[in-house]
């Protein structure tokens, strides 16, 4: 039962990753890939639970515009069709797990929406991804109850959103400051 829905998403992701890889064969992914032997790289590439490869942000931003992303997620935010495997019905919904990835490896059968797709990199420059986790009307950030992110990834998301605000990349409004004119007249 646990393997059912989310594994099919993993398969779709694998196919998407393959397609993506074929399109970007000529690109240098990162130094670590070149340091590995080819056999080692291929083994890690095809291992769906391996997370030793760190995808650079620029690639992630390209991925968000790519066909692979579009066929996998369509128009919906990446967390929309993720369903947590909770115990029972009608119970108080507990916090999400602490982390999906330990020692550079996914240790769960149903990883959270960001951890399951290696090409979704949370970074202050990847505004398209960050916006999916924020409310369009007030600029609030969705809770993990809604998004299903593991706690570690949620912390990283909060950090990257704060950095993006520092660079002014998010379309938000700033808090209004009130001045006591008497202090400034001289």
């Amino acid at each position, binding site marked *: 039962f646990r393997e059912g829905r989310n594994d099919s998403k993993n398969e779709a992701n694998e196919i998407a990753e393959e397609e993506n890889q074929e399109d970007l064969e000529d690109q240098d992914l990162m130094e670590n890939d070149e340091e590995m032997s080819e056999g080692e790289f291929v083994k890690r590439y095809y291992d769906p639970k391996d997370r030793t490869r760190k995808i650079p942000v620029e690639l992630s931003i390209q991925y968000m515009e790519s066909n692979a992303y579009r066929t996998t997620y369509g128009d919906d935010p990446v967390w929309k069709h993720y369903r947590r495997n909770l115990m029972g019905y009608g119970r108080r919904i507990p916090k999400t797990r602490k982390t999906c990835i330990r020692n550079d490896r996914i240790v769960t059968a149903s990883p959270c929406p960001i951890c399951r797709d290696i090409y979704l990199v949370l970074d202050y420059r990847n505004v398209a991804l960050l916006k999916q986790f924020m409310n369009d*009307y007030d600029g609030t950030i969705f809770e993990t109850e809604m998004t299903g992110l593991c706690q570690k990834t949620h912390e990283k998301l909060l950090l990257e959103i704060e950095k993006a605000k*520092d660079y*002014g990349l998010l379309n938000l*409004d700033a808090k209004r400051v009130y001045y006591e004119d008497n202090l400034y007249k001289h």
Partner: protein
Amino acid sequence: MYGLWRCLGRARGLQKINLDNFRQNSTAPARKKQTVFYMDEVQDILKSLTTVDIAKVFRPRKEGHKTERSTYQFLTTEELEKMQKEYDRRAREKLQMPPVMDERDPQGRVLEKDPLLVGFDNSKIVFTDITYGVADRERLIVVRDTDGTLRTADWDEQDRINLIYFPREECKHYVPPMFKPENLTDLMDQGQEKYEYILDRNCGQFEPDHPTFIRTAELVYNHINEKKNFRALESTRHYGPLIFFLCWSKQIDEFLIHQIIDKNMTGAVQTLKLYKIVHPGAPFEITEESDKKSLINFAKSSVSRRKRQILAALDRR
């Protein structure tokens, strides 16, 4: 003998000439920006130029916290008028202009020098008076240096120490990277909506006489003047300071053209009046007979940089 007395009398008379008159004819006014900005006539002009667009002032803002739902009410005509007056008043409050000031002079004076205290500690000790209700600018903060000097804090220390005891949500303890000039120009080229955001962040992060505050504001105003995006700041609290800056730096031509095209002749003449207050020796006349005449006077004067464009815009009008 009589001639000598007359000369002396004249000399004494000459000494009574107000030196301000002499200074005002030079290129840069020596008065402080805040003195001019807070003059009643200037405030009146800036407030009347900042039109109140209720829809823009009370637009839903994305500030990162939950907002209340809007409500629908049934009102009689009197109640509606009363409510409109109340909201006009509230809008004026929201449109309070951030102060325009000169760069601050360095502060800090030595209270005591005590060389016997050398070596009492490896680091300085800061004493802060955390009385509630005192403005951050006026809070008493003193520093005992490692060489024994007791002095009041300089401006950077004042800003930092205030944040320790009275943190502000809109102010970070580091300078956010968006205030670097290269990042600012990138942001502004992205879209007009960023002007208000940058200026609001500016107000939250820095005091109005901080050098970075002034530099950021001037960068934004110059960008708006170049791209002629005056509408972006219309009906915001930054419209007044923008116009004040344009008058102070003698760059009102593009703005006047914008007002003429918008058919805002009274506004254009008020801008000219403001220019004359800021630069009293300006070589053009403002006539009461017609607004167009005053603008033509300005366009033909030596201080105008876009004579042809202003006259063309007036002709089309």
